[in-house]
Protein backbone atom coordinates (compact mmCIF):
# COMPACT_ATOMS: atom_id res chain seq x y z
CA UNK A 1 0.00 0.00 0.00
CA UNK A 2 2.02 2.94 -1.35
CA UNK A 3 -0.09 5.62 0.35
CA UNK A 4 0.44 4.12 3.79
CA UNK A 5 4.20 3.76 3.18
CA UNK A 6 4.38 7.37 1.99
CA UNK A 7 2.48 8.53 5.04
CA UNK A 8 4.72 6.60 7.45
CA UNK A 9 7.96 7.73 5.79
CA UNK A 10 7.00 11.38 5.93
CA UNK A 11 5.56 11.06 9.44
CA UNK A 12 9.00 9.83 10.50
CA UNK A 13 10.75 12.70 8.69
CA UNK A 14 8.44 15.23 10.39
CA UNK A 15 8.84 13.59 13.78
CA UNK A 16 12.64 13.69 13.86
CA UNK A 17 13.54 16.92 12.07
CA UNK A 18 14.53 19.15 14.98
CA UNK A 19 15.77 22.61 14.12
CA UNK A 20 13.85 23.66 11.05
CA UNK A 21 14.01 23.04 7.32
CA UNK A 22 17.55 21.91 6.68
CA UNK A 23 17.34 19.38 9.52
CA UNK A 24 14.88 17.42 7.36
CA UNK A 25 17.48 16.94 4.60
CA UNK A 26 19.49 14.07 6.13
CA UNK A 27 16.22 12.30 7.01
CA UNK A 28 14.86 12.75 3.50
CA UNK A 29 18.13 11.39 2.12
CA UNK A 30 18.17 8.36 4.42
CA UNK A 31 14.50 7.51 4.04
CA UNK A 32 13.63 8.40 0.43
CA UNK A 33 16.92 7.64 -1.36
CA UNK A 34 18.47 4.82 0.67
CA UNK A 35 15.69 3.04 2.58
CA UNK A 36 12.84 3.30 0.05
CA UNK A 37 14.66 4.04 -3.21
CA UNK A 38 11.84 6.36 -4.24
CA UNK A 39 14.01 9.19 -5.53
CA UNK A 40 17.55 9.49 -6.93
CA UNK A 41 20.40 11.75 -5.74
CA UNK A 42 19.68 13.92 -8.74
CA UNK A 43 16.00 14.33 -7.84
CA UNK A 44 16.98 15.02 -4.23
CA UNK A 45 19.06 17.99 -5.38
CA UNK A 46 16.33 19.12 -7.80
CA UNK A 47 13.82 19.08 -4.92
CA UNK A 48 16.16 21.20 -2.86
CA UNK A 49 16.72 23.55 -5.80
CA UNK A 50 12.98 24.03 -6.34
CA UNK A 51 12.42 24.46 -2.61
CA UNK A 52 14.99 27.25 -2.44
CA UNK A 53 13.15 29.08 -5.20
CA UNK A 54 9.59 28.69 -3.96
CA UNK A 55 7.98 30.06 -0.82
CA UNK A 56 7.13 27.85 2.12
CA UNK A 57 8.93 25.46 4.48
CA UNK A 58 11.43 23.16 2.77
CA UNK A 59 10.12 19.99 4.48
CA UNK A 60 6.62 20.69 3.16
CA UNK A 61 7.96 21.43 -0.33
CA UNK A 62 9.97 18.21 -0.37
CA UNK A 63 7.00 16.18 0.88
CA UNK A 64 4.57 17.57 -1.68
CA UNK A 65 7.05 17.21 -4.52
CA UNK A 66 8.23 13.67 -3.80
CA UNK A 67 4.70 12.51 -2.93
CA UNK A 68 3.61 13.70 -6.36
CA UNK A 69 6.53 11.99 -8.07
CA UNK A 70 5.88 8.73 -6.28
CA UNK A 71 2.08 8.48 -6.29
CA UNK A 72 0.43 11.45 -8.03
CA UNK A 73 -1.62 14.25 -6.50
CA UNK A 74 -3.06 12.07 -3.74
CA UNK A 75 0.51 11.02 -2.89
CA UNK A 76 1.55 14.66 -2.60
CA UNK A 77 -1.32 15.45 -0.25
CA UNK A 78 -0.74 12.35 1.91
CA UNK A 79 3.02 12.99 2.20
CA UNK A 80 2.34 16.61 3.19
CA UNK A 81 -0.15 15.57 5.88
CA UNK A 82 2.34 12.95 7.10
CA UNK A 83 5.18 15.45 7.51
CA UNK A 84 2.93 18.00 9.26
CA UNK A 85 1.05 15.73 11.66
CA UNK A 86 3.88 15.16 14.21
CA UNK A 87 4.23 18.94 14.59
CA UNK A 88 0.51 19.35 15.10
CA UNK A 89 0.49 16.75 17.87
CA UNK A 90 3.77 17.54 19.63
CA UNK A 91 3.47 21.33 19.52
CA UNK A 92 0.04 21.17 21.15
CA UNK A 93 1.38 18.90 23.92
CA UNK A 94 4.34 21.25 24.50
CA UNK A 95 2.02 24.26 24.44
CA UNK A 96 -0.22 22.62 27.05
CA UNK A 97 2.70 21.99 29.41
CA UNK A 98 4.15 25.37 28.70
CA UNK A 99 0.95 27.26 29.53
CA UNK A 100 0.50 25.10 32.63
CA UNK A 101 4.02 25.26 34.11
CA UNK A 102 5.59 28.21 32.24
CA UNK A 103 8.76 26.13 32.03
CA UNK A 104 10.33 23.94 29.37
CA UNK A 105 13.92 23.79 30.69
CA UNK A 106 14.42 20.06 30.13
CA UNK A 107 12.84 20.12 26.66
CA UNK A 108 15.03 23.06 25.69
CA UNK A 109 18.07 21.24 27.10
CA UNK A 110 17.28 18.26 24.89
CA UNK A 111 16.95 20.54 21.86
CA UNK A 112 20.28 22.20 22.75
CA UNK A 113 21.84 18.74 22.96
CA UNK A 114 20.45 17.86 19.55
CA UNK A 115 21.85 20.93 17.85
CA UNK A 116 25.48 19.75 17.32
CA UNK A 117 24.25 16.38 16.06
CA UNK A 118 21.84 18.11 13.67
CA UNK A 119 24.69 20.24 12.31
CA UNK A 120 26.74 17.08 11.72
CA UNK A 121 23.80 15.39 9.96
CA UNK A 122 23.17 18.36 7.69
CA UNK A 123 26.92 18.34 6.92
CA UNK A 124 26.59 14.68 5.94
CA UNK A 125 23.65 15.41 3.61
CA UNK A 126 25.63 18.42 2.36
CA UNK A 127 28.50 16.12 1.41
CA UNK A 128 26.15 14.01 -0.74
CA UNK A 129 24.87 17.16 -2.42
CA UNK A 130 28.36 18.59 -2.92
CA UNK A 131 29.74 15.36 -4.42
CA UNK A 132 26.74 14.97 -6.72
CA UNK A 133 27.13 18.57 -7.92
CA UNK A 134 30.85 18.10 -8.56
CA UNK A 135 31.03 14.51 -9.84
CA UNK A 136 27.48 13.61 -10.89
CA UNK A 137 27.29 10.92 -8.17
CA UNK A 138 28.12 10.57 -4.49
CA UNK A 139 29.66 7.08 -4.41
CA UNK A 140 32.99 6.91 -2.64
CA UNK A 141 35.78 7.03 -3.80
CA UNK A 142 35.42 9.73 -6.46
CA UNK A 143 37.84 10.10 -9.37
CA UNK A 144 39.25 13.60 -9.16
CA UNK A 145 39.82 13.57 -12.95
CA UNK A 146 36.05 13.45 -13.47
CA UNK A 147 35.36 16.64 -11.58
CA UNK A 148 33.08 19.16 -13.29
CA UNK A 149 35.27 22.28 -13.57
CA UNK A 150 32.36 24.60 -14.37
CA UNK A 151 30.62 23.38 -11.22
CA UNK A 152 33.71 24.11 -9.09
CA UNK A 153 33.84 27.66 -10.46
CA UNK A 154 30.10 28.20 -9.86
CA UNK A 155 30.42 26.81 -6.34
CA UNK A 156 33.37 29.08 -5.49
CA UNK A 157 31.68 32.17 -6.90
CA UNK A 158 28.48 31.37 -4.98
CA UNK A 159 30.39 30.96 -1.69
CA UNK A 160 32.22 34.22 -2.36
CA UNK A 161 28.97 36.11 -3.07
CA UNK A 162 27.32 34.77 0.08
CA UNK A 163 30.25 35.42 2.43
CA UNK A 164 31.39 38.74 0.99
CA UNK A 165 28.15 40.32 -0.22
CA UNK A 166 25.60 38.41 1.85
CA UNK A 167 23.84 37.19 -1.31
CA UNK A 168 20.53 35.48 -0.49
CA UNK A 169 19.88 31.84 -1.51
CA UNK A 170 17.41 32.96 -4.17
CA UNK A 171 19.98 35.32 -5.73
CA UNK A 172 22.53 32.50 -5.77
CA UNK A 173 20.02 30.21 -7.47
CA UNK A 174 19.18 32.82 -10.12
CA UNK A 175 22.83 33.60 -10.89
CA UNK A 176 23.98 29.96 -11.10
CA UNK A 177 20.84 29.00 -13.05
CA UNK A 178 21.28 31.68 -15.70
CA UNK A 179 25.06 31.09 -15.89
CA UNK A 180 24.47 27.33 -16.21
CA UNK A 181 21.87 27.81 -18.93
CA UNK A 182 24.32 29.92 -20.95
CA UNK A 183 27.68 28.22 -20.31
CA UNK A 184 26.57 24.58 -20.52
CA UNK A 185 24.68 25.34 -23.76
CA UNK A 186 27.89 26.51 -25.43
CA UNK A 187 30.41 23.88 -24.30
Amino acid at each position, binding site marked *: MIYLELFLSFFQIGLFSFGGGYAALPLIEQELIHAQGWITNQQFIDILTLSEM*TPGPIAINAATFSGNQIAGIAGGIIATIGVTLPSVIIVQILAYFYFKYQN*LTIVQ*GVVQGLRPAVVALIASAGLTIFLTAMFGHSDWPVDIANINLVSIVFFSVAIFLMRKYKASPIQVMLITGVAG*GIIYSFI
Partner: protein
Amino acid sequence: MEKKELYTTLFRSTFFLSMFTFGGGYVIVPLMEKKFVKELGWINEDEMLNLIAVGQSAPGPIAVNTSLLVGYRMAGVPGALVTVLGTILPPLVIMTVLAYIYMAVRDNAIVNNVLLGMQAGVAAIIVNVVYNMGKRIVQQKKVVPMIVMVAALVAGIVFQVNILWLLLVSALIGALTTLIEIVGKKDKGDAK
Protein backbone atom coordinates in the same frame (compact mmCIF):
# COMPACT_ATOMS: atom_id res chain seq x y z
CA MET B 1 -14.56 39.58 17.93
CA GLU B 2 -16.83 37.22 16.09
CA LYS B 3 -15.57 33.65 15.76
CA LYS B 4 -15.92 33.59 12.01
CA GLU B 5 -14.00 36.81 11.62
CA LEU B 6 -11.24 35.49 13.90
CA TYR B 7 -10.83 32.32 11.86
CA THR B 8 -10.85 34.26 8.60
CA THR B 9 -8.15 36.66 9.79
CA LEU B 10 -6.04 33.78 11.15
CA PHE B 11 -6.32 31.90 7.87
CA ARG B 12 -5.71 34.92 5.68
CA SER B 13 -2.65 36.10 7.66
CA THR B 14 -0.90 32.73 7.69
CA PHE B 15 -1.83 31.96 4.08
CA PHE B 16 -0.37 35.20 2.74
CA LEU B 17 2.78 34.94 4.88
CA SER B 18 3.43 31.43 3.58
CA MET B 19 2.49 32.34 0.02
CA PHE B 20 4.85 35.29 -0.36
CA THR B 21 7.77 34.54 1.95
CA PHE B 22 10.85 32.94 0.46
CA GLY B 23 13.54 31.36 2.60
CA GLY B 24 11.61 29.21 5.07
CA GLY B 25 11.03 29.43 8.81
CA TYR B 26 13.76 31.82 9.86
CA VAL B 27 12.31 34.46 7.52
CA ILE B 28 8.61 33.75 8.13
CA VAL B 29 8.74 33.80 11.94
CA PRO B 30 9.88 37.46 12.31
CA LEU B 31 7.17 38.49 9.81
CA MET B 32 4.60 36.54 11.82
CA GLU B 33 5.73 38.40 14.91
CA LYS B 34 5.24 41.70 13.10
CA LYS B 35 1.78 40.71 11.91
CA PHE B 36 0.31 39.39 15.17
CA VAL B 37 2.15 41.60 17.69
CA LYS B 38 2.48 44.96 15.93
CA GLU B 39 -0.24 45.08 13.27
CA LEU B 40 -3.08 43.12 14.86
CA GLY B 41 -1.98 43.57 18.49
CA TRP B 42 -3.41 40.16 19.42
CA ILE B 43 -0.37 38.88 21.27
CA ASN B 44 2.15 40.84 23.32
CA GLU B 45 5.85 40.82 22.55
CA ASP B 46 6.96 38.62 25.47
CA GLU B 47 4.31 36.01 24.86
CA MET B 48 5.21 35.87 21.17
CA LEU B 49 8.88 35.25 22.04
CA ASN B 50 7.76 32.39 24.31
CA LEU B 51 5.59 30.91 21.54
CA ILE B 52 8.58 31.05 19.17
CA ALA B 53 10.75 29.28 21.77
CA VAL B 54 8.14 26.54 22.16
CA GLY B 55 7.88 26.22 18.36
CA GLN B 56 11.62 25.73 18.07
CA SER B 57 11.60 23.04 20.77
CA ALA B 58 9.31 20.81 18.71
CA PRO B 59 10.23 18.83 15.60
CA GLY B 60 9.01 19.87 12.17
CA PRO B 61 9.03 23.09 10.16
CA ILE B 62 9.41 26.12 12.44
CA ALA B 63 6.95 28.16 10.35
CA VAL B 64 4.26 25.49 10.80
CA ASN B 65 4.96 25.15 14.53
CA THR B 66 4.85 28.88 15.20
CA SER B 67 1.70 29.54 13.21
CA LEU B 68 0.07 26.58 14.94
CA LEU B 69 0.89 28.08 18.34
CA VAL B 70 -0.51 31.46 17.33
CA GLY B 71 -3.74 29.77 16.19
CA TYR B 72 -3.91 27.70 19.36
CA ARG B 73 -3.35 30.76 21.54
CA MET B 74 -6.09 32.75 19.75
CA ALA B 75 -8.76 30.10 19.24
CA GLY B 76 -7.76 26.74 20.71
CA VAL B 77 -7.51 23.55 18.65
CA PRO B 78 -9.77 24.77 15.80
CA GLY B 79 -7.62 27.90 15.54
CA ALA B 80 -4.49 25.77 15.36
CA LEU B 81 -5.96 23.70 12.53
CA VAL B 82 -6.91 26.88 10.64
CA THR B 83 -3.41 28.38 10.86
CA VAL B 84 -1.67 25.10 9.96
CA LEU B 85 -3.91 24.82 6.91
CA GLY B 86 -3.13 28.42 5.97
CA THR B 87 0.60 27.72 6.22
CA ILE B 88 0.76 24.44 4.29
CA LEU B 89 -1.77 25.20 1.56
CA PRO B 90 0.40 27.57 -0.54
CA PRO B 91 3.46 25.28 -0.76
CA LEU B 92 1.17 22.29 -1.30
CA VAL B 93 -0.47 23.89 -4.34
CA ILE B 94 2.70 25.50 -5.74
CA MET B 95 4.81 22.34 -5.41
CA THR B 96 2.09 20.13 -6.90
CA VAL B 97 1.98 22.33 -10.00
CA LEU B 98 5.80 22.47 -10.12
CA ALA B 99 6.11 18.70 -9.80
CA TYR B 100 4.07 18.28 -13.00
CA ILE B 101 5.97 20.98 -14.87
CA TYR B 102 9.20 19.33 -13.69
CA MET B 103 8.19 15.91 -14.96
CA ALA B 104 7.24 17.42 -18.33
CA VAL B 105 10.39 19.50 -18.91
CA ARG B 106 13.18 17.79 -16.91
CA ASP B 107 14.66 16.19 -20.02
CA ASN B 108 14.73 19.42 -22.00
CA ALA B 109 18.38 20.34 -22.76
CA ILE B 110 18.20 23.94 -21.58
CA VAL B 111 16.26 23.07 -18.42
CA ASN B 112 18.91 20.45 -17.71
CA ASN B 113 21.70 23.02 -18.15
CA VAL B 114 19.99 25.50 -15.84
CA LEU B 115 19.46 22.83 -13.17
CA LEU B 116 23.06 21.66 -13.57
CA GLY B 117 24.25 25.21 -12.89
CA MET B 118 21.92 25.51 -9.90
CA GLN B 119 23.29 22.28 -8.40
CA ALA B 120 26.57 24.06 -7.68
CA GLY B 121 24.57 26.93 -6.17
CA VAL B 122 22.58 24.60 -3.92
CA ALA B 123 25.80 22.86 -2.80
CA ALA B 124 27.24 26.28 -1.90
CA ILE B 125 24.10 27.24 0.05
CA ILE B 126 24.24 24.05 2.13
CA VAL B 127 27.99 24.37 2.79
CA ASN B 128 27.37 27.97 3.90
CA VAL B 129 24.51 26.90 6.22
CA VAL B 130 26.67 24.16 7.77
CA TYR B 131 29.57 26.59 8.22
CA ASN B 132 27.36 29.14 10.00
CA MET B 133 25.71 26.53 12.25
CA GLY B 134 29.03 24.83 13.03
CA LYS B 135 30.65 28.16 13.88
CA ARG B 136 27.91 28.86 16.41
CA ILE B 137 28.57 25.51 18.14
CA VAL B 138 32.33 26.11 18.25
CA GLN B 139 31.88 29.67 19.55
CA GLN B 140 30.00 28.37 22.60
CA LYS B 141 33.39 27.04 23.72
CA LYS B 142 31.78 24.06 25.44
CA VAL B 143 33.43 20.66 25.26
CA VAL B 144 30.37 18.38 25.14
CA PRO B 145 28.65 19.93 22.07
CA MET B 146 31.91 19.87 20.12
CA ILE B 147 32.52 16.22 20.93
CA VAL B 148 28.91 15.38 19.98
CA MET B 149 29.29 17.23 16.68
CA VAL B 150 32.54 15.51 15.68
CA ALA B 151 31.34 12.09 16.88
CA ALA B 152 28.04 12.42 14.97
CA LEU B 153 29.92 13.47 11.85
CA VAL B 154 32.20 10.42 11.97
CA ALA B 155 29.37 8.05 12.90
CA GLY B 156 27.11 9.41 10.15
CA ILE B 157 29.56 9.67 7.27
CA VAL B 158 32.14 6.94 7.95
CA PHE B 159 30.04 4.33 9.74
CA GLN B 160 26.65 5.20 8.19
CA VAL B 161 24.94 4.92 11.56
CA ASN B 162 21.16 5.38 11.40
CA ILE B 163 20.20 9.02 11.95
CA LEU B 164 17.53 8.15 14.52
CA TRP B 165 20.16 6.57 16.82
CA LEU B 166 22.40 9.61 16.51
CA LEU B 167 19.51 11.91 17.42
CA LEU B 168 18.43 9.72 20.34
CA VAL B 169 21.91 9.57 21.88
CA SER B 170 22.54 13.30 21.52
CA ALA B 171 19.09 14.07 22.97
CA LEU B 172 19.96 11.96 26.03
CA ILE B 173 23.29 13.76 26.39
CA GLY B 174 21.41 17.10 26.18
CA ALA B 175 18.92 16.02 28.85
CA LEU B 176 21.71 14.80 31.14
CA THR B 177 23.81 17.98 30.85
CA THR B 178 20.71 20.08 31.55
CA LEU B 179 19.88 18.00 34.63
CA ILE B 180 23.45 18.29 35.91
CA GLU B 181 23.32 22.07 35.40
CA ILE B 182 20.02 22.33 37.30
CA VAL B 183 21.33 20.23 40.20
CA GLY B 184 24.57 22.24 40.21
CA LYS B 185 22.64 25.52 40.49
CA LYS B 186 20.51 24.13 43.33
CA ASP B 187 23.63 23.04 45.27
CA LYS B 188 25.09 26.51 44.95
CA GLY B 189 21.80 27.97 46.14
CA ASP B 190 21.77 25.65 49.18
CA ALA B 191 25.37 26.46 50.07
CA LYS B 192 24.42 30.13 50.42
